[in-house]
């Protein structure tokens, strides 16, 4: 029983649920709730992206594109064409999944930096389309989005959104953890380590890469749709190259191949600018310095590095084993 609690799937999920449940005690006003909602939305994207980057080992510098497609798809269908928001979100998500599947096949044949380039190019192209087709998207100034309503019940206000996003984050983490510990998830991790090794036990590496790509795109798209409805407004800033970089940074910062690392990365890098805002002119410099420093001293990311430190502390008295690599 204790062992089960210590496993990431049950124990970690429970811990996350407790944090989400207790956090409102510290959220004294709507601004804090707002930050928490943003953390949750970013975390959903990062949990998905981590499946691709951390587990399948395939980089993407274009995920802001999927986030943006989700946001704009919902915005355009729901606000411009008056679709029910849920139907708009569902349609958008399916369309994004289909797009990711179609472009994923050729793109994921590329490796390493070339894959980075191709995904970056994909993101840039999506960005250009969204900023240029201002008849539909409102161009660089963005468009307003109707609030999310489900059968007459309108989701508005930071507190309600906090619980919705919190619940969805739990679901996202649960799905990701399930996947990782399934045959398909092991296949992803296997092809990350050795693509040939994976292929010779019967794993179709290309298919699995595309699967991870599509899942991460869907997570990003859903978070994008939610963000659009929550903010009530969407601008191309969230589709831009820099936002893609931000997302990857969150994943790597928190710790690749660690689902909770992705959540922590999203939390830290979303709140950090808020804390640093007080430094005015120095904000940017400090942000860069924190990023560099963390990655230099914790190259595996915050969560795995701390976990390792904790483990080795515990193990030190018994034996010096366990520090492989």
């Amino acid at each position: 029983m204790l062992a089960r609690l210590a496993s990431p799937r049950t124990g970690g999920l429970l811990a996350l649920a407790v944090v989400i449940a207790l956090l409102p005690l510290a959220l004294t006003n709507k601004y804090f709730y707002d930050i928490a909602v943003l953390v949750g939305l970013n975390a959903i994207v990062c949990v998905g992206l981590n499946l691709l980057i951390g587990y399948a080992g395939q980089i993407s510098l274009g995920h802001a594109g999927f986030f943006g497609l989700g946001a704009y798809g919902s915005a355009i269908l729901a606000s411009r064409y008056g679709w029910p928001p849920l139907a708009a979100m569902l349609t958008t998500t399916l369309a994004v999944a289909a797009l990711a599947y179609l472009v994923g096949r050729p793109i994921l044949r590329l490796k390493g930096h070339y894959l980075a380039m191709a995904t970056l190019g994909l993101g840039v192209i999506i960005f250009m389309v969204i900023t240029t087709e201002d008849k539909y998207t409102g161009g660089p100034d963005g468009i307003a989005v109707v609030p999310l309503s489900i059968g007459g019940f309108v989701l508005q206000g930071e507190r309600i959104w906090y619980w919705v996003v919190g619940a969805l984050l739990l679901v996202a983490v649960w799905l990701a953890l399930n996947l990782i510990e399934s045959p398909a998830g092991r296949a992803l991790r296997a092809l990350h380590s050795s693509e040939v090794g994976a292929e010779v036990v019967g794993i179709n590496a290309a298919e699995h890469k595309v699967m991870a790509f599509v899942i991460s795109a869907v997570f990003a798209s859903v978070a994008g749709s939610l963000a659009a409805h929550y903010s009530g407004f969407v601008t191309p800033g969230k589709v831009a190259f820099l936002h893609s970089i931000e997302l990857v940074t969150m994943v790597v910062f928190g710790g690749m191949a660690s689902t909770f690392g992705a959540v922590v990365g999203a939390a830290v890098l979303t709140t950090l600018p808020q804390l640093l805002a007080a430094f005015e002119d120095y904000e940017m410099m400090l942000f860069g310095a924190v990023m560099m420093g963390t990655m230099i001293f914790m190259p595996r990311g915050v969560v795995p590095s701390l976990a390792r430190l904790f483990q080795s502390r515990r193990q030190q008295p018994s034996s010096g084993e366990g520090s492989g690599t």
Partner: protein
Amino acid sequence: MSAQFTQYLLTGLTVGAIYALVALGFSIIFNASNVINFAQGEFVMIGGMATVSLIAVGLPYLLAIPLAVAAAALVGLALEKFAVEPARGASVVTLIIITIGASIFLRGLATIIWDKRFHALKPFTGDAPITIAGATILPQSLWVLGVTLAVVLALSWFFGRTLLGKAMLATSHNRLAAQLAGINVRMVLFLSFGLSAALGAVAGILIAPITTTSYDVGVMLGLKGFAAAMLGGMGSGVGAVVGGIALGITETMSAGYLSSAYKDAIAFVIILAVLFFMPSGLFGKRGGERV
């Protein structure tokens, strides 16, 4: 060949030459360290901004430019020493994130040392346009083309003829073998950052009189330089130059003949298409997996 076409070509060459210089910087660091240095664009910025401020305190170009290049090279060396070297052995993605952190840091630093405004730099030799076959070109563009050519020649001499250059090349081919052959791999890594920072700065100085410069001018140029390097094949010097020029010409031709709104998108579509057929870029190493 119509005058219009000639104009697009000349423009594409000028823009492409700058991309090529930035791309070369990417390639040199990549060869030495396998790192994609996302702070490459910031070297471009430092070159331009430092020259502007040195000129402002009254230095002549002949003094200001070498000093600015040296300043950028120092920043490059410092970046290697304090950010990349301590993270040796970290994964490639981690190193990329470190360089992204560095680029944000340097941009932040630039807003404090300098400011957030755009700055102009006087052209080196006047700005009376020169007419070639019905098209016009600024003297500064000739400087861009000439210096880029000189830099490419100098680099090929450096890597082909000098001991240090060959050592750097050897390191890129096989780090372990280079180390066994007595090459100080750490020193090569260190120098490669200095060298590519200097290259970036040169690009930044050359382009500043044409485009003006500011603390965040490196973001887009870095991105385009990266794209050019990938198009040509990361790590290939020829690839960087060809990739840069090709990207520059593609952009201007698309803007001229197709759609100026979608010219960047068109350029990226073409890059994607090339990568689908040549997954290691135009001149990249065809890396086979050894089993």
